[in-house]
């Protein structure tokens, strides 16, 4: 990639995505309403500790918003033949995907900051580590958006195919990442699986940021490694599947 022209191209793609896709129903339904009701249906009738509440809700919000639209952009563009238009222009696959990730990251970061701030204020929680939490939200949004883009590598022009795959991945990840039950309280096999979920590290990061115990920078570092790995894997897989879309 050649900077800053590459960045300019990616930002142009991100702006396009925000205008075209992020005002649509799936963002509101799958990104905001579904995690909200999902979480509160679990919460009601239980006496959850405030730290579990804020880390769980924050994790749900960022996971679902950052992966709400990113998986379906590629199949939608394949179907509407706008992908062909993009591919015929001087932009690389990595620049295109980076644009999709940036848009998704922006939406994920903003829409997860809101519930974290509101719940933090309602529960009167003390934000001990502001900067690491802000960095963590950005990092996690990037990482989860890259995972969403990776899901979209399925060479199909039917968004519902990818949505189905996305749901099969998104819900199990929530259950093994300490969203409802702290990862440390999971059975042995659950603890093992939770280590391979990047959401686990974001949930831990939120807990620590609000005064819980844990290793702040280790969680942030692992999240960064997941983000880089997800990006590289998404670019690699998309380069292989793109010709099947054209």
């Amino acid at each position, binding site marked *: 990639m050649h900077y800053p*022209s590459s960045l*300019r*191209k990616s*930002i*142009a*793609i991100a*702006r*396009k995505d925000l*205008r*075209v896709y992020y005002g649509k129903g799936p963002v509101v339904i799958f990104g905001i309403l579904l995690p909200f009701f999902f979480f509160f249906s679990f919460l009601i009738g239980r006496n959850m500790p405030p730290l579990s509440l804020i880390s769980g809700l924050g994790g749900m919000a960022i996971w679902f918003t950052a992966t709400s639209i990113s998986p379906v952009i590629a199949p939608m563009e394949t179907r*509407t*033949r*706008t992908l*062909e*238009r*993009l*591919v*015929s*222009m*001087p*932009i*690389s696959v990595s620049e295109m995907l980076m644009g999709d990730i940036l848009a998704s990251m922006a939406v994920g970061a903003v829409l997860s900051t809101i519930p974290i701030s509101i719940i933090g204020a309602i529960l009167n929680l003390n934000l001990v580590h502001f900067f690491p939490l802000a960095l963590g939200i950005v990092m996690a949004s990037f990482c989860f958006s890259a995972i969403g883009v990776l899901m979209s590598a399925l060479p199909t022009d039917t968004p519902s195919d990818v949505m189905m795959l996305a749901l099969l991945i998104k819900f199990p990840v929530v259950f093994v990442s300490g969203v409802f039950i702290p990862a440390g309280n999971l059975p042995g096999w659950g603890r093992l699986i939770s280590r391979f979920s990047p959401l686990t590290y974001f949930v831990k990061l939120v807990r620590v940021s609000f005064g819980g115990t844990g290793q702040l920078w280790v969680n942030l570092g692992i999240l960064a490694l997941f983000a880089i790995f997800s990006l590289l894997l998404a670019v690699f897989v998309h380069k292989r599947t793109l*010709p099947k879309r*054209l």
Partner: protein
Amino acid sequence: MSAIESRKLVKEFDGLRAVDEVSFRVEEGEIFGFLGPNGAGKTTTTRMITGVIKPNSGTATIEGIDVVQNPTAAKEKIGIAPEEANAYLDLTARGNMNLAGEIYGVPGSQLRNKVDDLLAAFGLLDRSDSKVKGFSKGMKQRLILAMALINDPGILFLDEPTAGLDVESQRLIKDRIKELNEEGKTIFLTTHDIAEADRLCDRVAVINRGKIAAIDSPERLKTTIKSTQSVLVSFSSKNFQPEDLRVLEGVEEIEKEGDKWRLYGPEPGKIIEEVVNFARDEGGEILSLNTTGPSLEETFTHLTKNQN
């Protein structure tokens, strides 16, 4: 250096060869027509040359830049209006133009003026802030063409630019193609419309079953079909029989068309001489005499039929 060069391009899909060692050159400033029946390999060849898909073998260059090795640099030299491509329906015309401009690296300070100029040239300025979903097919096609010109490319690839459009849009696009060529742009025109290719193109290539069947200027291609060159003659005073005319030197076939006779042969000039002598000798008066060559459509049919 040629503007576009294709050297032995090959593309296979599931073991089937869709494009088979296609080679040609397009010189700077030409309007080059690329004709062929459906499924002949036109769009696949164009996609390979423009770097949209990779060939299995062979090379293509744009102004000397290898499209496979350096697709981004090659794409910066060209503008493309693909047939199977759309603008974003949920963006405005200006939004689509801005997106193209930013990807092509048009400086922000010039972009607004450039977008306005191009939208005006294609009759879309008054709809610049309307979403494309409300546009007619002709307006969408004009927008795609305007987007292809955002980087002021030296080479323009147009895939079926007038297919299915209303007369007004067709005329506007054809006029713009001529103007762009007069400004010095090389135009690679893929089309089904043979009359359009005949009127616009300096040279045409005919592709059939993935192979190039012929490349030449439209007029020279027409002369390659000797059998369909003919002389159309009508006489006023005498009713001649077919056998009277069939004996004339150079006439290979004869057809009656109303009150006229069509005499086919490879040398129309020779046939005219014979007809004039025949009329003088037999006391007939020639009312009309025309030579007619094959149309590009007949040539196209002949070339593609011979390969099937």
